[in-house]
């Protein structure tokens, strides 16, 4: 028997203008302790889907349920149940790295001792100890991305929405991130991850959702989507190529 999904996207249609929806009846679920890869070409609707989940965009039709609640039913519980790492880091220029972590911890109601413990570990893991007291405006793009990732992980919500996390990260940062995501997954958190680095996420995600032109064209485990593409045993990259080529 399956558990209650952490995230349910139900027949979601939406976009920037009513007449021209970007997403068409998108439907998928993310179970507790599951890492799901959301893959698609540029403009397929990955970021738009994520924005709808975050509540930054209003669906034209359908809806999003996080931990059994919609955003309208319980905005505070909904927002506290997820943390987002955007594709481009968005930080407060006035805050240092450590202050960002503290602000995130306060906003997510993390206990002070938990915050101290988690922040020290994350700073060490992402090799940011020396930059902990630097203003975010003085960081490189990769470092800013690390701060965004650390802010999400210091909060420890049940669901992480992570958009293109590897952009700008150094190889050590990518490895640290992947290891930490696995750790979070093992502790019961769920991750919805979008990335173009298919060879990397192939080995880490439990399931994949293939978006193409705003529609889900395949979803399931690597084995399941390989069957849907009639390519048993193929790599994610080849499966994806075949699916989107057929979808043209």
């Amino acid at each position, binding site marked *: 028997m399956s558990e209650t999904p952490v995230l349910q996207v139900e027949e979601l249609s939406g976009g920037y203008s009513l007449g021209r929806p970007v997403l068409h009846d998108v439907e998928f679920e993310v179970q507790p302790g599951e890492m799901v890869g959301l893959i698609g070409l540029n403009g397929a609707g990955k970021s738009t889907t994520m924005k709808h989940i*975050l*509540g*930054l965009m209003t669906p034209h039709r359908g809806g999003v349920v996080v931990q059994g609640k919609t955003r309208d039913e319980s*905005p*505070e519980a909904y*927002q*506290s149940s997820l*943390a*987002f790492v*955007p594709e481009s880091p*968005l*930080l*407060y*220029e*006035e*805050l*240092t790295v450590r*202050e960002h972590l*503290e*602000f*995130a911890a*306060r*906003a*997510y*109601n993390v*206990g*002070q001792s938990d915050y101290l413990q988690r922040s020290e570990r994350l700073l060490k893991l992402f090799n940011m100890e020396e930059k902990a*007291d630097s*203003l975010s*405006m003085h960081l490189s793009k990769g470092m800013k991305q690390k701060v965004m990732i650390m802010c999400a992980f210091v909060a420890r919500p049940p669901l992480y929405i992570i958009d293109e996390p590897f952009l700008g990260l150094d190889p050590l940062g990518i490895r640290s991130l992947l290891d930490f995501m696995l750790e979070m997954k093992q502790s019961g958190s769920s991750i919805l991850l979008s990335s173009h680095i298919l060879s990397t996420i192939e080995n880490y995600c439990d399931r994949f959702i293939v978006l193409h032109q705003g529609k889900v064209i395949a979803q399931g485990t690597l084995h399941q989507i390989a069957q849907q593409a009639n390519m048993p045993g193929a790599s994610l990259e080849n499966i994806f190529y075949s699916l989107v080529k057929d979808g043209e």
Partner: protein
Amino acid sequence: MELKALRSQRKSSFWGQIIPYLPYVMQSGVAVVLLLLFIVFSAWYTSFLKAMPPDLPVQWILLILLGPLTVYSGFRTYIQPADVIFLLPQETKMKEYFSPVYFSGVIYKLLALYFVTLTAWPMVVRSGEAALPLWAMLVILLALKSLSAYGAWQELRITTSRARTGYRLLRWCFILLMLAAWIWQLAWWKSLLFMLLLSVNYILALRFPMKHTVAWENLIASERSGAARALMILGWFVEVPAEGQKVIRRRWLSLAGNRTPWRRSTAYRYLLIKTFVRSELLGIIVRLALLGMLLIYWTGHSWMGIAVYIFFIFITGTQLTALRFVHRDSPAASYYPIMPGIRMKEVLRFISRLLFVLTFILWLPLLFISVAGRGDWLLSSAGLAAGLLLVLILRLAWSKKWSAIENED
């Protein structure tokens, strides 16, 4: 497109965004209050000139009024981040783009300087300190202003931030010294000679540090804060976004906000305090408070002192309302679970508490005058009461106005 035309187009585009707000500025209550205060000031100044105290330190007043206005230099270049890619290949031709920038940077500030000089000059004439005619003063101010603007422009080109800070300090010292030499002149030719020698030394000193041909990154940063400052001033009157303010590290204030209670509901307060202590607004408030205290001290023996006191509470409060726009349009804010309504509540709380403290700080000169026996205790107590009442009224007005706007949104 020609570089000169590009700059002109960018300037028109920026002011094209600002001008539609001007009718709202005229309609806003703040503009009316400022106009009333201007009328009250004019009346007071006229009567003050008629019965001017004989021991008034006119030279110091001139230096304090004209010094910062003469030294301060800023340029609106309208340079954009993408220019690093698209205009960099034309770096050697950028003089064409920057020449009007330099002239606009001098002309508008010079007009303000001349306005203050002309306002203050009757005081100089009545005190009998005017050894030389007004036109000589205006010529000297033009020369000093141009020199300061030249120095400020060269500072922007300096490669290291430490050298930039050092040269900024040097510019303040040199220009203030030259202005003082003119104001306190014993013989005009001696002052002029002294100023010439100092100017030559200053210009020579500017040749030493390493400089960029075009300091793209400094120009982008300074343009960003210049644009944000213009929007911040507009924000005193109407609703405009206020992102892009210059951030200043201020290590000595890095502990501020750390004692904010550890609760979800106060998370935004933590962000607000950190933002305020690293904003330009803090500098503006401190300078305003110091100027206010000085003016209140000078005028505190009469009812005019109370009027100046009230004026500074009002103007400080108006400045503080800029905090309302901070992070309002930042997408980062929507990534954290900060509930609607919290932001406005925390801003209102922070501003009113800070203004409450400033009301007491600004009152200190009145207290000092009363203790020294030069003022009336009743008058200074009434002033404090009026100041506190004004803070309460402002708080109520902000709360009502902002709630209405939030409900509309």
